[in-house]
C-alpha cells in the first residue's frame, strides 16, 4: 500500500496495514493504529505490545498461548484488550508482521 503519515512521520505499511519495518514503530504510531482498530491504549496494552516486539525481534513465533503465559495478562484478558483479534490486532499495533501461527 505504500506510506501513511502517522504523527508527522511517513511510515511504510503493507496493504493490510502492517508496518513493513518494525523499527519505524513508536508509541505514537501504536496509538494511531490502535485508534483505527477502535482501541484506546492503556499501560496494559503497552506492556503487551512491548512483549510482542521483544519476542518478535528475538525471532520467536508468537501465539496467544505465549502471551497468556507471559505473566502480563491471561488469554481472557488479552481478548479483552484486543477484542476480535487478539494476536492480529496486537501485532499490527505493535508494528510487527501479521502473525503466521495457527494458534
Amino acid at each position, binding site marked *: 500500500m505504500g506510506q501513511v503519515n502517522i504523527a508527522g512521520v511517513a511510515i511504510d505499511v503493507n496493504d493490510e496495514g502492517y508496518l513493513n519495518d518494525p523499527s519505524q514503530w513508536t508509541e505514537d504510531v501504536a496509538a494511531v493504529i490502535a485508534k483505527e482498530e477502535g482501541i484506546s491504549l492503556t499501560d496494559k496494552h503497552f506492556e503487551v505490545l512491548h512483549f510482542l516486539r521483544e519476542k518478535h525481534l528475538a525471532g520467536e513465533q508468537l501465539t496467544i498461548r505465549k502471551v497468556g503465559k507471559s505473566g502480563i495478562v491471561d488469554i481472557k484478558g488479552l481478548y479483552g484488550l484486543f477484542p*476480535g483479534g487478539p494476536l492480529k490486532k496486537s501485532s499490527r499495533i505493535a508494528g510487527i508482521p501479521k502473525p503466521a501461527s495457527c494458534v
Partner: protein
Amino acid sequence: METETQTVETTTKKVNKKTLEKVCIICAKGSIEDVYAALVMTNGAVMEGIEAKLFFTFFGLDAITKKQMNSLHTGTIGNPAMRMPGGIPFPSILGMLPGVEAGVSSMMMSQMEKLDIPPVDEFMDMITAGGGEIYACKLATDMFKLEMKDLSEHVKDIITIGQFYELCDGDRTQIIFT
C-alpha cells in the same frame, strides 16, 4: 489526512470481502488428530473474531470427557499416512504391539507441544476465554451414559442436533464436519 484515507480503504475492503461471521464445527471422532483438527479450527476462528461453536458427538465425546480428554490416542492400525521418524514406512503389524499406540500418541503430543499447541483442556480454556462455545450431543451422551458431571467444565451444555442448528443461524455461517 493520508491516515484517514487508509482507514476508509481498509474499512471498505472489509465490507466488500464479506468475511465469515460464524463457524459451527462438529467433531465425531476421538483420535488426537480428529480432535485437534476441530480444536485448531475453533480456536483459529475465535482468534479471527469469528463466532465459533464446537459440537462433540459419538467418539468425539472422549475429547470432553474428564476421564479421557487428556489421554487421547492416535490410531496406529490402518493409517497409510503413518510414518516412522525419518519418513520410513510404518508397517501396520507394528501398530498392534502393546505400547506402540501409546508411544506414537505421546510422540504426537510432544511434537505439538513444541509448536506451542496446548493439551486438550488448556486448548479448551483458550477457546472459551475468547468466547467460543463447546457443546455435547444429547443423543451420544445418552448412548454413552454420560452426564454434565462427567464432562469438562468447558462444556456449556448438552444439546440436541436441533438446538445445534438453532445456534447456526446467520447468513455468513458455515457448518464444518470434521
